[in-house]
Every structure is written in C-alpha cells, then in structure tokens.
C-alpha cells in the first residue's frame, strides 16, 4: 500500500529555540513509526537555548531510512513556527512545489531588538512566502495559544494544521495517540484542545 505521494516525503519544521520544534517533530515521527513508516529526523540545534534557530528535517519513507538532512531544493512541506525562520529555510530547501504553513508571530532576533536592523513587514513576508510556494497557509498560532493560556501551545496548533492539510499520512487519531503517550493527564486536555484548534483553523480556511 503506497500512501506517500512522494518517497521520501520531506518535511522541515523550523523555528527558534524554545518553541517546541523538537517536540513537534517527535510527535509526528512517533505517530508515523507506529504506522509502520521509516522516519528519519535530523535536527540542528547547537546553542538554540540561547536564541538561535532550530530546524528539524523530517523524512518519511515506506522503503528505507534516509539521510538525516534534506538536500538542497528538496523539501515538500515547510512548517514554520516563526516567519523569518520560514523564509530562512525556503532559501536553500524550497522549490516551486512546496507547501508552506507558517505561524504569524515573530520572535525578534537580538539585532532587531537592539535597533540595528528591522524585522520585515508582515505583508512582505506573506507575499514572499506565497510567491515562493505552490500553496501557503498563515496561522495565528501564537495568538490562539495565548487564548488557551500559554504561547508554548503554538507548536501543537501547527501540528493540527498540518494534519488538517492531509499532506502527511496521518490523521487526527494518530496524533491523539502520541499525545496520550507523551503528556500527563493534567497537560493532555489542553494539548488536545490545541490540536483541534489547529485542525479547525485549516478546515475553516478551506471551506
């Protein structure tokens, strides 16, 4: 049974240290392994705790383990937890056929916060991402997460968005399963809410 449109399917999750990038990639990875896929996740997160970018290359295959880094120009889906990081990834790994889902809330680099450079305007970011992808979705994940109580839930909302877009061979139940394995009963409920919110947002956009 071939369920992947492409083998390997290449997903990049990108963001800034502390956004839960690694957790998101693990949730997706665990769900896929449980369904029998080969998953290879390569991560770059040197000193990310101290302000640096984090990228996770998630490669899904029915046949084999893959190189942990996606080659230039070969990503299929980019899940951006932060807008500038999304553009940073599109540069080397994008191609005209990519699907991009990005969070709208910026995390300003030190250079911007100290007044040395300006963070690009949101309109410009939207335009540029739309130009460089086949399809692009913009999600106010941080806002939604803050409404749920804490900004850290944004990554789960984004995973929900990805599920709703049906680009991965994963459905809602698959993710619920790994959420149950990962979170204690206290935290489980709010994470499920976050997942549902992400799914809902995309479904509303598509309708």
């Amino acid at each position: 049974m071939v369920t992947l449109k492409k083998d390997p399917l290449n997903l990049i999750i990108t963001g800034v240290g502390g956004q839960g990038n690694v957790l998101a990639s693990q949730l997706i990875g665990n769900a896929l392994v449980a369904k029998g896929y080969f998953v290879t996740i390569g991560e770059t997160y040197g000193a990310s705790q101290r302000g640096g970018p984090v990228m996770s290359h998630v490669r899904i295959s029915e046949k084999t383990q893959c190189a942990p880094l996606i080659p230039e120009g070969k990503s299929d889906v980019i899940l951006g937890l932060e807008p500038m990081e999304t553009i940073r990834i599109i540069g080397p790994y994008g191609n005209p056929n990519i699907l991009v889902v990005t969070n709208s809330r910026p995390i300003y680099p030190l250079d911007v916060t100290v007044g040395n450079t300006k963070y690009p305007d949101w309109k410009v970011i939207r335009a540029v991402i739309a130009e460089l992808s086949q399809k692009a979705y913009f999600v106010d994940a941080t806002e939604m997460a803050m409404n749920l109580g804490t900004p850290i839930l944004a990554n789960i909302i984004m995973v929900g968005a990805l599920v709703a877009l049906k680009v991965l061979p994963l459905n809602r139940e698959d993710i619920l399963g790994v959420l149950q394995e990962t979170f204690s009963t206290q935290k489980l409920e709010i994470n499920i809410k976050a997942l549902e919110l992400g799914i809902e947002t995309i479904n509303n956009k598509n309708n």
Partner: protein
Amino acid sequence: MSIVNLDAPGRTVLMMGNEATARGALEAGVMVATAYPGTPSSEIIGSLAEVAKEREIYVEWSVNEKVALEVAAAASMAGLRAITAMKQNGLNVACDYLFTLGLTGVKGGIVLVVCDDPASHSSSNEEDTRAFARMGDFPLLEPTTFQEAKDMTIYALELSEELRTVVILRGVTRISHARGNVKLGELPKDHRKPYFDTSSPFTYSPMVQKHSLLHEKLNKAKERFETSPFNSYEGPEKPDLMVIASGTGIFYSREAVTLMGLEDQVGILKLGTTWPLPDRFLGKHLARTQKIMFVEEVDPFLESNVKEVWADLAPILEIGPRTFYGKRSGHIPIVGELTTDRVIEGLKKALDEVYEPCDPNYSRRAKEVTKEFVSDRALGFCPGCPHRASYWAIKNALKLDDREGFLTPDIGCYALARTASGFFLSKTGGAMGSGTGLACGFGKLQEFGFDQSVISVCGDSTFFHAVMPALVNAQYNKSNFVMCILDNSATAMTGFQPHPGVGTSAMGDPAPILDIEAICRAMGAKVEVKDPFDLKDTTETITRLFQDREGVKVLILKRKCALLKAKGEKPPYKIHIALENCVGQDCGCNQLCTRIFRCPGIIWDTETKKAKVDEVICVGCGVCTDICPNSAIIKEET
C-alpha cells in the same frame, strides 16, 4: 517512562542515535556507564542515568573523560560489561589512559563511544577520532543507521569481550542527535557479579610483548570483519564509479546517486568496520572498477587506509591502477560537514555529470529573498544570565585598569565572551581548562617586562574537570593573574547534568557537595567571593585585584544560572522604563542598554525612540537598573 528502557522486544520505535546506543548497551548487559557531558554525546549516559535504578546498573557523571574511561575500565577488569561515551575533545582527554588500556587488555566487554562533531556545531574544533583507533590499535565501528547504532553497540561489547580489548564506536552529530527507526531487542534479566582476578593482573609490561599481543587481537578482529554484515556492496556488478563510504556518508551517497539517476553507473561499498580494514573483502570490491570515490566525515581516514590496502594488494590480485577521488583530490571538501549536496558535487566532477536540484530561477530568487529579509540570530546570554553581569564588570575593570588587559576564557556558556553579548572580551580560545593554563603562562612574563593585566574565566563544572591542576600550577609557580570562577551551580551548555558542586548524582541521589571556595583556599590561594549582580562591588573588586601583581587571585562570582530558576520561582523584580528619564539616542546614552548591554529583555522601541521592557522575556533580575546612566530603568520588588 523512558524509551530506552521499554520492555517490548520486537517493537519498532523512533529513537535518537544516542538513545539507540544506550539501548544497545542495556540489551548487551552493560552494568556500568560513565561519561562527562559533551555535545553531541551527552544523551547516551544521560538516558542510561534516567533508567539506572530500574535496570539496577551504575551510571556516573565522572569529573572528566579520563576518569570516566578509568571507571568503566575498572568495571570491565572486574568482569562486568561497561560503556563510556564522550565527544571528540573528550577522547583527547581520555586517550592517555586509553593507550595503556590497549596494552593491559580488558575482561568484560567495554565499548568506547565517541561522537564527533563535524562542522563544529557545538565544539571548538572538528576532529576525526578514528585516528585514535589506528594509533592505539583498537577495532573501530561506524554505524550508518539508528538500528546499527544499537546493533553495533551490542556487537562491540561482544567483540571486546571475545578479544579482551576496547572496541571504539564512532558516530557523528547527524547520527547521535538524529532520530530513526529502531527495532528493540530483549532486555537482560540477570546481572553478573564483579570479581577482579588477582592471578591475572592487567599490566602493561613487558611492553613489547603486550604490544604484540594487541596486534594479534587486531588481526583477529580483521578476520571477523572480513565477513561482517556491517559491510556490504550495493549497485551494479561493474559500476563506472564505486563509492566507498562509512557512517552518514552511506546515506548521503545513496541519496546523491538516486537524485542524479546514477543507479546503473555508481555502486556503493558500505563499510561499517573501518579499522582494521578487511583487506580481502576490500580487494574483491576494488577490482570492480577503476574509479573509486571516498565519502566520509572529517578526515580522509578511509581514503588513506584503503589506498594502502590497494598498494599492498594490487600486485597480488592484479588490480590495475585506480583513480581515487575524495578529500585529497578536492572532490569532497576536507573541512566542514558532509551533505548530500556535497557528494553530488563530487560525483558531478568525477563523472562529468550535470544536476540541478530545482528550477534555477526559483533557486536564485529564493536565495535573493533570504538574503534580503533574513538576519542572523546572534547568540547571546539568556535574560538574567549572571555571565552578562560578570562580563560587564570585567569589561569595565579592564578599561579602568588601563593596561591593555585581556580575558582568557574556557569552555561553556561563558565562552560567548567572544560575541557582542560578551562584549567581545575573549582574546584566546582553548580546550577544557586552557583559559587558566594560558593565564599561568601570561602571568609569568612579568620578568620580561610584560605589564598587561590578565583575567582567566572558567565555570564550576570546568573547575572540577580540568582547572584544578592549572590552579595548583599557578599557585606553585607564583603566576600573576586574576582567576575568575563563574559559579552558576550548573553545567549549563550541555544540558544541566549534575557535577561535584551541586549535590546530586547522575542517578538522582544526594551527593556530597565539593566546595570550590574551600578547595581554592586549601591550595593556599587568595580567594574572594562576590555576587556578580552587584555590578559596582564586582567591578571595584576586579579593578583592585588587578593592582596586586603577585601570584594568582581567585575571584568566585557566585549566582545561579537563570534557567535553573525557570520553574516555580517568581521573578524578584518587575522592571519598567521611566520614559521621561530615558535619554534614548541622545548624547548621554545612545542606547547603552540595548546596544551594548544587550539583554534580550530590553528592546528598542523604534516608534517612541526609547527603551522598552519585553515582559515576556524579561525575568526580572534587576541588573539593568544599575547600568542606566539616567535611572530610567526602574525595578519594583514583586
């Protein structure tokens, strides 16, 4: 519930390379596991520590990698199986004993896992530790997949026990920290009982005899490797070019070949046992084709060694001349990390092929956009980090001392002294403990007329690892410098593993606290302890210490790492800006807080042209209130 301890033989799970190695150690019956934290190796012993009590094994964060190896070796000599793990620099520290261990031999299987860091994502250098295997005459294995990370660990322990010698397992960041499918095996039920057989001692003399014996072991390993399932060939019978690769090189080569559509022209010889090289196996495959390309991480290790094998075998097996491509020929870069794209470049050159990853117009535009809109995320200290305060005081003290003084830092978060957040204070770089060692040297140049003030900086974990001997040296040889210990009660950079100063062991038990201040005093050094958050006092102290030109002056700047306080503790202050006092960009300030002090908790508001507190990021430490020249930063106790 740790995945490393999952009792589900046959199940396939997603595991980090390091976790797979740890799981392999458990399945093979390892009872003693040791390490000093070092990215990218820390999770091996870290994950074993989490399950140590359940598995009834002993796991230790040793004070440094040499002791870690020695502790594991002791377990092995007592008949137990052991694992010790480290990063490349750690092997440099441990290798003195490693070479002796080669001569003395071992009893219970012992695997030495080394995780190299090509491109230096989290290191001071990039180094190919496979050279140690050749230098010390040890069998060497390189996993490619995560399954192999587990399976090779098990094999290494079995081989080590059979041959009575250490076996080295070498990985890289992209295996250690990457995740993939691993099928779990059985976890053992019994434990061995340790016993040191005094009738069969582990000595290194007579040395020459022992060395011969070591070579015999190595030859036995070679025999095993001739038929190892870790070595294999894939591709056409007679390829135009054969890639010889190990480790991650296999993945990158496979993908390069697929993307370029060269499956019918290029074959790949996978080597998992890379020292000693199985020469008969190699000879067979070297006969396939004239063009050979080597794909491996960091140094041309396989490249040089296979060329040797070819040189020896060519006349015997009548293999003609070969064209070797690799790092020596420039087809694969000799510095930096391997990627599929780099292998593609090599193949393009070697086979005169063309390849475009995607529409070149798109690539060009995408790169343009990235250049225009994306800025670097400079590394800096976390909000509330005591190092920012310490370096502020040191920076000012060096200026007040006005003698072109400088800082010699060590390894850790505080090595960020080389960045803008550390006020570009770093003037030297080194290995663990080198900051103090170098200062010892500078501190003896007074008699030749050297008058510059020198201050070395190290952390609490680094102090125990390597700095203590340097302090003995400074005291004994009367070297003149200020030795600053930034005691934040943490081994922060690698992930907060406990160390001898914090009172907990790897396995979570209470541990005696070794008091750094008491140790320094016991060595007879002049010691002072200050709180770096008291900028005025700290600056005055350091400036004063610079005036004392006799011997080493130890200054301990003690304050907990900001990240240790994250959970549960409420911030001491609430900070806001008194806008009417903020001078902003005018004469009298020009953004001192955001432009130079650079705490991410303060941002520059381009609308109001004043400073502003980012309430999400600010942790309320209050240090910034003391640096504002106009009292515009206000702190209120919470």
